[in-house]
């Protein structure tokens, strides 16, 4: 299941674990990324709280946790090569994985059609 947030994150659910990243639209708006800071494995994330930071040459932007959960894995390639997030934000440029406290809460987020229809 693939879902999106109004804050321009995407998450894909597989076996109760959600992979999280920034949307292609967000990556386009930010421009070339030069720094990525990811949460620590084991960290408890609260929906809406800052979970990661992505920085372009010009500005730093928080990436908010899309739902409650615990961080299980982070994408070290995104940290060592932030350009990989700019190049493929919804694929190889994923940021972290989290075990969702309530996987059913995914349903309430935006599907691709609803995200595309947002006035961005």
């Amino acid at each position: 299941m693939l879902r999106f947030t109004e804050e321009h994150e995407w998450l894909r659910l597989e076996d109760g674990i959600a992979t999280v990243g920034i949307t292609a639209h967000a990556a386009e708006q930010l421009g070339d990324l030069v720094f990525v800071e990811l949460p620590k494995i084991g960290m408890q994330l609260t929906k809406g709280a800052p979970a990661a930071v992505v920085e372009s040459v010009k500005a730093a932007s928080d990436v908010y946790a899309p739902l409650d959960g615990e961080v299980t894995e982070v994408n070290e390639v995104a940290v060592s090569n932030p350009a990989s997030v700019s190049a493929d934000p919804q694929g190889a440029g994923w940021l972290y994985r989290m075990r969702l406290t309530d996987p059913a809460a995914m349903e309430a987020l935006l599907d691709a059609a609803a995200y595309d229809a947002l006035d961005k």
Partner: protein
Amino acid sequence: MPASAAESVPFERTPLHDLHLRLGAHMVPFAGYAMPVRYPAGLLKEHLHARAAAGLFDVSHMGQIALRADDPAEAARALEALMPTDVVGLPPGRQRYGLLTDEAGGILDDLMVANLGDRLVLVVNAARKGADAAHLQASLPGAVSIEKLDRGLLALQGPAAEAVLTVLAPEVAGMRFMDAREIEVAGVPCLVTRSGYTGEDGFEISAPLAATEAIAEALLADAAVLPVGLGARDSLRLEAGLCLYGADIDAATSPVEAGLTFAISPARRGGGARSGGFPGAARILAEIQQGPARRRIGLLPEGRVPVRAGAPLFAAADDAVSVGRVTSGGFGPSLGAPAAMGYLPAAMTESGTRVFAEVRGQRLPAIVTGLPFVAAGFKRG
């Protein structure tokens, strides 16, 4: 990611507005204008291209002002009374970086002044052009006329700039850094100066509004030239150690604190031919003699985290009280690392001093360093 705000406010347009849209620029509001922050190549490529070949910048939002008097020397004397700059001694055909100061010794604006023989032409910051025009109107004698020039302004910057511009204007090959000449570019009468704000060799071309786009397109037709947006303009000037008005310098900053003492001409300093006689002279000349309480410095963060404007600086990782502040900062594409500028007490400004910048609640070590971060490529000879 915060949701992006809709930008529907009408902004002024430069003569290159349609060209920016055709080139696919990402447009943002800046100083009341719709300006290109980057083009499809992206900020990093644009920045590196300007250092390696040539970048074309639309700087038409900046203010261009002509000062005239029946006796041109009268205009120079009058302007000199507002600046710690040697305007009287600026020869025809030359340009100089200068500062407008206030009575407290603060900086009202930084600008370029060119002597064209029959007039002086100023290029001032976009965000300051209204204030500067009002200041000049209020301060210059009636014998000096002030004309706001409605013209386009292009900057062609980078080691290939001379070769590119020579095709359209053969005379530029003979120009030195800070020369100013009225010559034809692609058959259009323009004012060309060998200057810029990237730390690279290059030119600024002041063109009639109606001809600006055609000149820009002729320059972009050269494979060595990429259009470069305001984003890379900012990272280029940061690496070059150059001040951004409103960030690194303002009315609360003196030229000596800002490390702009080079812009205070010897003739205007203590013992000079026309010492003093500019607003704030008492403070500024005293600071040159005794040293200022704080100074602008370069900072190289030790890690990879960019340290940005507003970050407080601390002498030790666990100090409660900050000793200074970052005024510009981000990532230097040519450095391949974060870089910043800010102010520290004079006693802490020696290169190699370790300080701590607070970013998202963490104290990150950074090393005080001289400026610029990237050596300039000016053609002085």
